């Protein structure tokens, strides 16, 4: 692991006793008062952090991990209140402490790096001003001295050309740079504890890796203890020595990171470890294969994988898409090449993964594939027919055969439609069957995605994210398509749900002979579902091969970088380290 070395100014001599705890949370209860009553967000939670130690709280959304962390610095939103328990920080009791204590504590002794770098910087103030604010608020420096210190802090957080950058506004910064600025603010007053709330989940994996490496090096040298809050077990295990796993407001398991990964005890942790994509090193097996040969390491769809014998279903040739962006002057346009000379083929019954970071053009390819966007150049052949040559009728019947699943299960279902109407709509549009036949089909579809038939009377807002995504899968299947384009279909889901959907997709593929074009930024997921991979970078395909080849023997530097950036990729918990 690369350690970042930075010139540190005025490092506090870590003369603290490393053997008495810095933070001790005991039996903490936090509750929120809502319209429907009191909700206990955290119940009986324990947490101990020693000086200079890195501890991570892992849990899915709604598990209470952020609530626990925010109660430490009394930043609970809305009606949140600590109702029982104790929080001892550096020997002081924080439960019931007055506002003044917390104001003195925040920033100075406990720093916070918030979750979303896009919204946590004030867009109307310069970056430097916002860092200076942190210095002024904690009485560290003011005036001209503060500005020099700001530049030092930003440089320390890994911003090149910091003095100039301090004079820029947040919108001139990329996501990674903003996160670095937030880290600079969090560490400005040299706190003893830094709370990092999902510090990098909004960033691309390669940027995430760089920033976490840097943060680790920095806090190591400063002797700052770090409390990571994350949903990613791999990331937590890699960055922290002590793990706290939370589920539904309770700490279900805690202990040394490696021990938990190697030997999880609680059923939830077991499921979590088993589902974490970053720790998986093989493709998910379909139900049939699971039954037959569960020990087989490399299970491949139908057993014959991507053998050339499989019929080619989609051929993409020299696809290029140019967008006209509004330029500086009036009426001036700038050309932006989102997709640049992309070619690939997908064989029937297999999964082709298109991997890339944000802005690599992978979603544009998906939209062209769905015939929702016209390519500037190049052709897509579906079963030998050029998509561009389709007339209205041809296009209508093409729609039946290629269906999408989108990323956000909260946005892809019409909130005004009951589940029945949502699933019936495709059948109605394509005049499939009469009313009775359609209802039967809706029941079948719900059964296919393992939801009870009574779900069809529900509305999307009554279902959880995972259930909604299963409805989206069911809708995509309604017309018995050949191809499903999954645009980041599992990226917005919690790990366990993600594993559930991936398994479902895989089972359906084996059962119905579906072909998937799987678009994702997450190489770890690719490992679990794909037969072939194309890696995209700024509109081009830089590497294309079978999944095993890409993972075991990546040819391109960029692919290697992506692989290395998978959190937890270096943990050889299961004795099978991926090539690095």
């Amino acid at each position, binding site marked *: 692991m690369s350690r970042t070395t930075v010139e540190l100014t005025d490092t506090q001599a870590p003369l603290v006793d490393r053997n008495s*705890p810095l933070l*001790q949370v005991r039996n903490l209860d936090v509750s929120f008062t809502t*319209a*429907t009553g009191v909700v206990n967000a955290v119940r009986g939670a324990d947490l*101990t952090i*020693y000086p200079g130690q890195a501890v991570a709280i892992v849990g899915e959304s709604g598990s209470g991990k952020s609530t626990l962390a925010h109660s430490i610095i009394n930043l609970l939103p809305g009606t949140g209140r600590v109702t029982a328990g104790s929080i001892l920080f550096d020997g002081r009791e924080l439960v019931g402490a007055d506002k003044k204590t917390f104001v003195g504590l925040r920033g100075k002794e406990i720093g916070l790096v918030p979750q979303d770098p896009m919204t946590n910087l004030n867009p109307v103030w310069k970056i430097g001003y916002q860092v200076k604010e942190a210095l002024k608020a904690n009485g560290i420096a003011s005036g001209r001295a503060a500005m020099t210190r700001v530049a030092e802090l930003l440089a320390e957080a890994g911003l090149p050309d910091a003095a100039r950058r301090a004079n820029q506004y947040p919108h001139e910064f990329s996501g990674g740079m903003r996160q670095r600025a937030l880290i600079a603010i969090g560490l400005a007053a040299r706190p003893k504890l830094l709370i990092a709330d999902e510090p990098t989940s909004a960033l691309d994996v390669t940027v995430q890796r760089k920033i976490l490496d840097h943060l680790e090096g920095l806090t190591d040298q400063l002797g700052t203890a770090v409390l990571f809050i994350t949903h990613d077990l791999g990331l937590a295990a890699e960055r922290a*020595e*002590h793990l706290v796993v939370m*589920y*539904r407001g*309770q*700490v*279900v*398991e805690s*202990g*040394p990171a*490696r*021990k*938990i990964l190697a030997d999880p*005890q*609680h*059923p*939830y*942790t077991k*499921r979590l470890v088993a589902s974490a994509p970053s720790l998986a090193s093989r493709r998910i097996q379909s139900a049939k294969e699971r039954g037959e040969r569960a020990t087989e390491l490399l299970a491949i769809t139908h057993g014959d994988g991507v053998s050339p014998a499989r019929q080619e279903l989609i051929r993409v040739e020299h696809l290029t898409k140019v967008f006209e962006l509004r330029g500086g002057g009036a009426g001036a346009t700038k050309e932006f090449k989102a997709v640049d000379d992309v070619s690939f083929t997908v064989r029937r019954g297999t999964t082709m993964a298109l991997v890339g970071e944000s802005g690599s053009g992978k979603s544009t390819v998906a939209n062209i594939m*769905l015939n*929702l966007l016209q390519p500037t150049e190049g052709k897509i052949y579906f079963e030998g027919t050029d998509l561009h040559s389709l007339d209205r009728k041809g296009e209508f019947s093409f*729609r*039946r055969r*290629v*269906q*999408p699943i*989108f990323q956000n299960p909260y*946005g*892809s279902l*019409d*909130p*005004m*439609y*009951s589940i029945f109407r949502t699933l019936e*709509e*495709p059948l109605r*549009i*394509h005049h499939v069957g009469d009313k009775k036949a359609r209802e039967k089909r809706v029941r079948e579809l719900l059964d296919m995605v393992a*939801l*009870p038939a*009574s*779900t069809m*009377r*529900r*509305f999307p*807002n*009554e*279902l959880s994210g*995972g*259930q909604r995504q299963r409805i989206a899968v069911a*809708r995509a299947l309604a*017309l018995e398509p050949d191809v499903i384009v999954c645009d980041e279909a599992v990226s917005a889901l919690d790990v*366990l749900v993600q594993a*559930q959907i991936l398994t479902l997709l895989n089972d359906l593929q084996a059962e119905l002979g579906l072909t998937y074009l799987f678009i994702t930024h997450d190489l770890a997921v690719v490992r679990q579902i794909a037969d072939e991979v194309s890696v995209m970078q700024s509109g081009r395909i830089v590497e294309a091969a079978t999944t095993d080849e890409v993972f075991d023997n990546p040819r391109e530097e960029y692919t290697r970088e992506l692989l290395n950036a998978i959190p937890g990729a270096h943990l050889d918990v299961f004795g099978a380290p991926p090539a690095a």
Partner: protein
Amino acid sequence: MPEPLVRQDQAHFFASLDEDVLAAVDAVDETEAPASMWQDAWRNLRARPLFWVSAAIILLVVVVAIFPKLFTSVDPNYCELQNSLKRPASGHPFGFDFQGCDIYARTIYGARASVAVGVLTTILVTILGAVIGAIAGFYAGWFDALLSRVTDIFFAIPFVLAAVLVMAMFRAHRNIFTVVLVLGIFGWPQIARITRGAVMSVKNADFITAAKALGASRPAALVRHVMPNSLAPIIVTATVSLGTFIVAEATLSFLGLGLPPSVVSWGADVAKAQQQLRSYPGILFYPAGALALTVLGFIMMGDAVRDALDPKARKR
């Protein structure tokens, strides 16, 4: 990495193994009634006192407007000068105005003109505005650019001033429909703007793309998915503006440019009451009070509906 030292209070801990907590994750609640957005809004609305108060006022006003005979048997246009400015008497609880007409009867009959103008104008404005706004928002392009400029122009013209001008030209055939038409012509841009904004925010949702990928045509996507999801702000604006149209009618009638003298209107009665304001303020008070109460009812209803339809207020 060397095996780090494990402190005693950081030893491996795990909670008791209760498996059934996990099963709850995948369960669908099968007991509660399904909740569409409208049902949720209704549940929310039901709990608001503001809604019940305004509903009672509106119901009263509407019943009065449709069946004035239930409330009075006196003809509002039967006036005897000998009753001029007489104080309340039995059978005439509000007394008489300058012309000797029964104020109570005129107040009751005045509801009809106000409610008719308010409701008809709102319907006209909503249909016009929603259709134009939806097409502009959904299809964008030159039509949208044109519409935006037109609404800008309409916004620059003071609503009542424009209505006064046009109504002055209609002197010969003034009736409820001309008033509705004139108010409608100058009232639709607001709804069109609201609709355009709502449609634009919905049209890029994933479920619209999904519908298109299913083969739904653009007009079908607009009618079946975009419009139902844009209705909430349109309904709220329409309810609130119903009150303002009633005020506009009263204003026009007050200026003598609204309804003809043969139609009983609160606005016209307020105008007539001006001269006797000092000698008998009651003449002014009753029609003005009825007008204020009616407008208040509709505006409060709009407020309650807005809160109930607010997506942030939804429970689940």
